[in-house]
């Protein structure tokens, strides 16, 4: 039974597949996650067995490393605010990518010596197909490091930091191609041309640096509105990075689990792109939210400013209300007070629903998580297709810190968000927009919704505005 670990890897793979399947159903999701976690535990035990079987493990390194990683992971997972979830997922993607790249580097550390790497690999007794190892080694470093630095840029962008690409417009693509070519050259150098350990490591360092820059440059031009796509795509990359390191160390569990995650990340990416009516290529090349959008007429006329008191009266007279949350809700941490307001209205037999645009917030499903934290039952969260027809029968719509996803300009041609499915809030009797100012959303364009006759503006922080509305409603 010295190969028992192989069967344990198989068991772990099966648990990952079942877990992933259950993760995509509301009622089974929690069990699915735990099933996958059990699979991981089995995989770790099996890896320990494999290590012990092949000459022993350095327990003095392994145990402290596992404890340290566990402590950091557990600390982050329990301490982070739900509003910061996109940043956390980006950060976890990044360390996952780094781990995969470092596995490849550690493998290299055991195989570099005098002679070209491809010859060394051919002579190594533990490698059966040196060519595939030689190809996947640099790939594993490239994907892993680019995932790390790309996630880091995404992390900063999610935190509200604005960044612009050092190379403007179309010259950017040339720079990216050049970097890609350099990555290939340094890979060839590392594998074929370098003939001693020193120059091999020099090539490796060059490859790491180029991969890092590539990750930064590819993520940088992607606009804030496209962040959900980026986070999903980086998720896919972290899976591919794991699969690539699986090729290197010839471990099938890594290959299967990595490709599973790569595929599921790609599906999420496609869902996000569809929600914005854009192709993946279009998103990756940058566009929305890029500085290329002209500073066209952002002047507004016919703006009607309102107050929480007035809105409270409108709400009191309504029979149905729809709340449209956006990133502003997350920034203001207003998810709890919005729920309280909804409860107060429901007590008065007013129907309250939430309309969730698929790309509202900064990551797929961001709003759902936030509202779930505030104990909003998920039956009250309505998807775009299901609720869009109901706006015309709705008395009051409250848009909390959302902008581009309710911009009627999307129905017209020739602007950055043309064709993006939007929530038809303008069809309601009254639309109340809670926004701190008239500043444009990430698409950088004017929102004519604010000028409509049935549109009211409340220029306040979302939490403050909703708190005052709640107070006023209670007093009515």
């Amino acid at each position: 039974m010295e190969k028992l670990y192989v069967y344990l890897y198989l068991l772990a793979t099966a648990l990952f597949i079942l877990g992933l399947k259950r993760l995509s159903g509301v009622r089974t999701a929690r069990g699915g996650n735990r099933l996958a976690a059990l699979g991981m535990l089995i995989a770790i035990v099996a890896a320990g067995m494999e290590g012990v079987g092949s000459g022993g493990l350095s327990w003095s390194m392994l145990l402290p490393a596992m404890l340290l990683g566990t402590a950091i992971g557990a600390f982050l997972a329990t301490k982070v605010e739900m509003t910061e979830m996109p940043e956390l997922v980006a950060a976890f993607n990044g360390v996952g990518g780094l781990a995969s790249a470092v596995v490849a580097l550690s493998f290299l550390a055991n195989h570099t010596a005098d002679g070209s790497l491809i010859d060394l690999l051919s002579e190594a007794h533990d490698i059966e197909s040196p060519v595939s190892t030689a190809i996947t080694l640099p790939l594993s470093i490239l994907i892993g490091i680019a995932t790390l630095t790309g996630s880091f840029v995404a992390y900063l962008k999610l935190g509200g930091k604005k960044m612009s690409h050092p190379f403007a417009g179309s010259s950017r693509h040339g720079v990216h191609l050049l970097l890609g070519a350099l990555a290939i050259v340094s890979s060839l150098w590392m594998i074929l041309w370098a003939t001693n350990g020193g120059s091999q490591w020099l090539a490796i360092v060059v490859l790491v640096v180029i991969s890092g820059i590539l990750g930064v440059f590819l993520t940088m031009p992607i606009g804030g509105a496209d962040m959900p796509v980026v986070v999903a795509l980086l998720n896919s990359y972290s899976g591919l990075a794991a699969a690539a390191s699986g090729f290197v160390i010839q471990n099938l569990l890594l290959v299967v689990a990595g490709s599973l995650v790569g595929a599921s990340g790609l599906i999420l990416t496609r869902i996000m792109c569809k929600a914005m009516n854009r192709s993946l290529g279009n998103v990756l090349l940058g566009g929305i939210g890029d500085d290329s959008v002209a500073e066209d007429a952002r002047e507004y006329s016919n703006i009607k400013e309102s107050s929480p008191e007035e809105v409270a009266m409108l709400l009191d007279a309504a029979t149905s209300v729809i709340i449209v949350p956006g990133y502003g809700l997350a920034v203001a941490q207003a998810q709890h007070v919005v729920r309280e307001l909804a409860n107060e209205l429901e007590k008065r037999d007013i129907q309250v629903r939430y309309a969730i645009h698929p790309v509202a917030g900064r990551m797929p499903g961001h709003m759902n998580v936030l509202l779930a934290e505030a104990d909003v039952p998920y039956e009250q969260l309505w998807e775009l297709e299901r609720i869009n027809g109901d706006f015309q029968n709705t008395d009051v719509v409250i848009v909390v810190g959302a902008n581009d996803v309710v911009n009627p300009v999307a129905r017209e041609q020739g602007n950055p968000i043309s064709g993006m499915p939007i929530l038809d809030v303008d069809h309601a009797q009254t639309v109340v927009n809670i926004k701190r100012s008239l500043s444009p959303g990430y698409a950088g364009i004017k929102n004519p919704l604010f000028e409509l006759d049935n549109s009211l503006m409340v220029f306040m922080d979302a939490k403050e505005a909703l708190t005052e509305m709640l107070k006023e409603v209670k007093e009515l």
Partner: protein
Amino acid sequence: MSFEIIFFVFVLGAFIGFEVITKVPPTLHTPLMSGSNAISGVTIVGAIICLRLFEGGSPVGMVAHVLGFLAVVCAMVNVIGGFMVTDRMLAMFKSKTKKKD
């Protein structure tokens, strides 16, 4: 193991991924992402094997082991953090009917 076999497994894995995740309710997009991200922490297996001892128990490459240490820490953060935060999120998803119990 030949490249062909590994590649075969890779492609089949991707197929399963596409087939398993076809319809995901938007409510679950975030947990699915963080959960599948935790699964990509499977690199932990590779990281542990990096800490193998060679030739009768002597660590051949100290560099390899230091890198292995780093890989284990990173992968472990990914695995533990990912699964825990996903569980924390999913615990919050409540349905109306459950609330009345």
